[in-house]
């Protein structure tokens, strides 16, 4: 636990000085995707559930948040709350369906349900179809903090990220998290010990959807845009890639992964379709060679260093 306190202090310091080193907009994008990936990692890395449709919760929250802010003129804190709750509700329904099957079927079901949301977003009127919801006002947080300045907004986003990150950390290290890891490792044994495993799985699914929704809603406040990209299956693929690169089942993996993937996309954006090819290559290389990801690799070599007496 002590080691983690140090990690948090370093992380908070990095977040505080970040905008003086890198563009705040870039950092906010990293933080949104990092939170999204942390939420996904909670489900995959600790629950052992591979959802291939997390874009649904991310995207649904961003649409609801954008709609509330632009059409209804709600203040940002309520928009974030509404978007996040919408994602949680969707996660509850989809999660209850998906946990009825295991493994590979679970992945296919979540993907298919997310595709349904994609078609819904394409056809429904409130989502703006192909145009999405554009130029969403940032507004004043709690009526006093004007979010128009990127630097102010950055610190709000950083606070949201840190809150989500700490919440996930708390969950993982709670008795609930321990049960979750045990279910991931050996579900039949947990069933025989008397745990209602499907309730645990549903709860972690909903929690993950809520946090993914928070990330999606925050993204809307930053970029003032909700579009079909947010609900497309490529978005679900991207969050998997982030977690895979950073390291599944590690606390910091998704954050590192998000930084790398978002940076990569920023630099490669002019190359157009090559981005997809490169993402695919990274997928293949990670699966074939670095299954524990960057942070996983780092942690392992650190542990080996500590063990070897020299």
């Amino acid at each position, binding site marked *: 636990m002590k080691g983690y306190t140090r990690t948090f202090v370093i992380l908070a310091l990095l977040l505080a000085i970040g905008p003086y080193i890198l563009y705040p907009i870039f950092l906010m994008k990293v933080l949104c995707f990092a939170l999204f990936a942390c939420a996904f990692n909670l489900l995959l890395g600790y629950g052992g559930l591979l959802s291939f449709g997390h874009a649904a919760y991310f995207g649904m929250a961003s649409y609801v948040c954008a709609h509330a802010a632009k059409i209804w003129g709600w203040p940002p804190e309520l928009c974030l709350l509404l978007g996040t709750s919408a994602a949680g509700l969707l996660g509850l329904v989809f999660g209850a369906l998906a946990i009825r099957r295991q493994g590979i079927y679970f992945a*296919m*079901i979540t993907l298919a349900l997310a595709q349904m949301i994609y078609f819904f977003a394409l056809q429904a009127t409130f989502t703006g179809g192909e145009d999405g919801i554009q130029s969403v006002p940032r507004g004043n947080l709690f009526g006093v903090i004007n979010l128009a300045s990127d630097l102010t907004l950055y610190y709000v986003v950083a606070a949201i990220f840190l809150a989500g990150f700490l919440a996930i950390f708390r969950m993982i290290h709670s008795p609930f998290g321990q049960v979750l890891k045990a279910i991931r490792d050996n579900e039949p044994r947990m069933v025989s010990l008397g745990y209602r495993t499907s309730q645990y799985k549903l709860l972690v699914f909903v929690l993950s959807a809520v946090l993914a929704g928070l990330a999606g809603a925050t993204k809307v406040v930053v970029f003032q845009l909700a579009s079909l990209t947010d609900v497309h299956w490529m978005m679900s693929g991207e969050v998997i890639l982030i977690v895979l690169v950073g390291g599944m089942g590690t606390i910091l993996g998704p954050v590192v992964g998000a930084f790398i993937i978002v940076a990569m996309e920023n630099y490669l954006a002019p190359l157009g379709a090559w981005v997809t090819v490169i993402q695919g290559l990274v997928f293949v290389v990670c699966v074939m060679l670095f299954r524990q990801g960057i942070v996983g690799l780092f942690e392992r070599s650190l542990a080996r260093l500590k063990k070897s007496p020299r």
Partner: protein
Amino acid sequence: MFTILGIPSQALFGQLLLGLINGSFYALLSLGLAIIFGLLNVINFAHGAQYMMGAFLTWMLLSYFGIGYWWALLLVPILVGIFGLLLERLLISRLHHLDHLYGLLLTFGLALIIQGAFRIQYGVSGLPYGIPVTLAGGQNLGFMFLPNYRLWVILLSLSVCLATWLLIEKTKLGAYLRAATENPTLVQAFGINVPRLITLTYGGGVALAALAGVMAAPIYSVNPNMGADMIITVFAVVVIGGMGSIAGSIVTGFALGLIEGLTKLLYPEASSTVIFIIMAIVLLLKPAGLFGRRV
């Protein structure tokens, strides 16, 4: 011309035909997925990309080499099948001992690479491919007009599905395949080369996807995204049918195509989502799928 339930017969049968066509592709693709899953325990996410490759290769054979539809029907599945064999040998076989999810992630990455590569080369606007001359035109059945090519697609898909089913259920090779699905270690102990069987199975499944691609080329426009949209629907079809039975995936494929066609007629807004809604209902009532065994 007459009407049924207030719908003109032309429109009704036209949509049902379109549904059957879509169903033909669902059946072929879900069949390939089911065979691959049975033996490899891998959901082949690249299946859609391989279907797209089939369509593109058909187009390329005609545009670059002047090789027509009928030869493509034979050559393309072989070529894409060989590509599948290589993928299995070089990459997928190395993940056998790991969790299934890595196979899914690997094939997802492969799908991204293949789709991206075709998008770089050919853009996203579709390429046209003409219907072969012998199958141009159609029959006027009185209540509807039936284009010959569509009839051909349905018949060919049905016969390929039937042939595959016979191959798996009634031949010696099929018996090995089913045995290896049940217990690979034991089959290996009997002196059958299971790794080779696995490689060939993957190649065969991929060849089926490519064949579907050849058949699709004259119907849908040939474009890099054609497989990605298709494969997710096919996943839903697979979940509905359950992957336990070969016949089940064929029947489910055709039936869902028909239902989708009917929905397009009765309530067009739901036509793209109806399969997913059916999937949700099936999950509630019979989680293992209509033809599946409880895993």
